């Protein structure tokens, strides 16, 4: 116990004497942790959006307004017989409006009820056995015609959703965001690692007399190392603590009101605050421990 207080006292004494580099390292860790605190939920959300798109293994076939009942039944029959199609569900105008009502909230819901007539088209939900066969089914419904233009199998087909394109667009945008943020985060992680390493190195230099005396009187290697390791961990802990505080403030003042008012934000599937804090604290501690470890190995010859 008295040993632990000795180590902590030595680490704090070193930090006081070594204030400028310690502050630099703390600030970098704050910035890094903040960025990670934004990045991790965004990546999480985009990953869940991606899997949502991937799981949507159905094609929607929209029909023209003037389609007759017999035309619709014959098309339904033809669709059922296509390969890879497991089910074909008919959605009439009333049902389409009902589905739309369940998907929207608030003001939008009110404006729907103010509509004079139903603008939604009739459609078929064509379930496909596997996401990889979506495109094949689409090709069957809208085969490319002789002139190169797509020619649907029935004149009543207005449009077939292109889920492949949708997925690709989402994937393209999110992966670009992911890469940019990921590169920035990696650079910041590296910078904070090096700054912690540098802080410890300066601390070792500032305390070289102490280290020399400790070696002379026979302090064990880990007894000499512990104050420096603790110093790195304290730097990491302070940085992570401040960053989590700022993130929490941001959540309370920006993210929470936004998600209360905007469906877009509220609908995003993301992680809770507690696991996020755990991840960030873990990352900050790992970075600082690694930083001091690297330096101790290189500069503290015992």
């Amino acid at each position: 116990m008295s040993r632990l207080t000795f180590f902590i006292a030595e680490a704090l004494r070193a930090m006081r004497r070594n204030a400028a580099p310690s502050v630099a390292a703390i600030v970098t860790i704050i910035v890094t942790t903040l960025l990670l605190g934004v990045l991790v939920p965004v990546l999480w959300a985009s990953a869940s959006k991606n899997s949502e798109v991937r799981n949507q293994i159905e094609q929607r076939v929209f029909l023209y307004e003037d389609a007759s009942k017999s035309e619709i039944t014959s098309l339904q029959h033809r669709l059922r017989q296509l390969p890879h199609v497991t089910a074909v569900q008919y959605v009439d105008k009333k049902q389409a409006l009902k589905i739309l009502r369940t998907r929207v909230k608030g003001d939008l819901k009110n404006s729907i009820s103010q509509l004079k007539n139903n603008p939604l088209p009739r459609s078929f939900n064509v379930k496909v056995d596997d996401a990889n066969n979506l495109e094949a089914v689409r090709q069957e419904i809208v085969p490319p015609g002789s002139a190169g233009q797509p020619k649907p199998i029935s004149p009543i087909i207005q449009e077939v959703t292109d889920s492949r394109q949708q997925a690709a667009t989402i994937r393209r945008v999110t992966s670009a965001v992911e890469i940019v943020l990921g590169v920035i985060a990696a650079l910041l992680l590296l910078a904070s690692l090096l700054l912690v390493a540098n802080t410890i190195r300066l601390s070792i230099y500032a305390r070289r007399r102490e280290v020399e005396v400790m070696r002379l009187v026979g302090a064990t290697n880990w007894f000499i190392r512990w104050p420096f390791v603790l110093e790195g961990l304290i730097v990491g802990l302070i940085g992570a603590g401040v960053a989590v505080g700022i993130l929490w403030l941001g959540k309370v003042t920006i993210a929470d009101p936004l998600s209360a008012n905007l469906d877009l934000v509220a609908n995003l599937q993301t992680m809770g605050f507690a696991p996020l804090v755990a991840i960030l604290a873990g990352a900050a501690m790992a970075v600082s421990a690694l930083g001091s470890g690297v330096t101790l190995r290189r500069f503290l010859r015992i």
Partner: protein
Amino acid sequence: MRRGREVAPRPGGVRPAGIAPPVIELRELTQVYPGGHVGLDRLTLEVQRGEFAFVVGPTGCGKSTLIKLLIGEVTPASGHVLIAGRDIQKIGAKKLPMLRRRIGTVFQDFKLLPNRTVYDNVAYALQVTGGTRSEIRRKVPEILRLVGLQTKIHNYPDELSGGEQQRVSIARAFVNHPPLLLADEPTGNLDPETSIGIMQLLYRINRTGTTVLVVTHDREMVDKMRRRVIALEAGRLVRDEHGGGYHDESTREFAARMRAEMGLEEARRLDELDR
């Protein structure tokens, strides 16, 4: 622990039971620096328990290298260093700190921590070797009394004279009562009168049974001490004299004789008149 170490048979040699191995034993010890400069050249010698020995020689003759080899700071190019019968190269990096706890070291530049008081400087040696708080409270004032600094325990090193600073460093080296005390030019920065005081203190420590090895270039002082003198030149042993028989004198007699021999008696009296 201590006893076990001291009666341990030395490797490769058979020793009659009951006789302790020499505190220091060097066998064909050679140290070569990068660039080919020879620090030590096949040095072989023994220092017995309770001895007070000097190592002398011109600058660059390998004296300081010897100290570094004795505390395992550097490893020899060839040959062996045995401390109390144990080859320190075979001790391993993990147990080396334990060896250093059994060897006190004193240097010309004192190596005190400038931002700690006299008390804290000595206490530090106990703290970092796992001393308990009560142990520190008991041992530190005791050792500071022994070196004559009981009135300066709360002073910082820069408030002390050179001689006083060296006493603090001796107190720190001896607070654990190690069986071997090494001193590298302990009087190098001090005037002759202060030097005699430091030598007197080292002699007092020697009288408690501790083996003391002093490295110095001050041949005049050494010749007057009449103790064993090991002279090195270019890394070789050129002289090893077991000096003339004053081993039973008290520390007071020792200091008086030293002063007389160095012609300082007069100076000291004048000094006392000034106070």
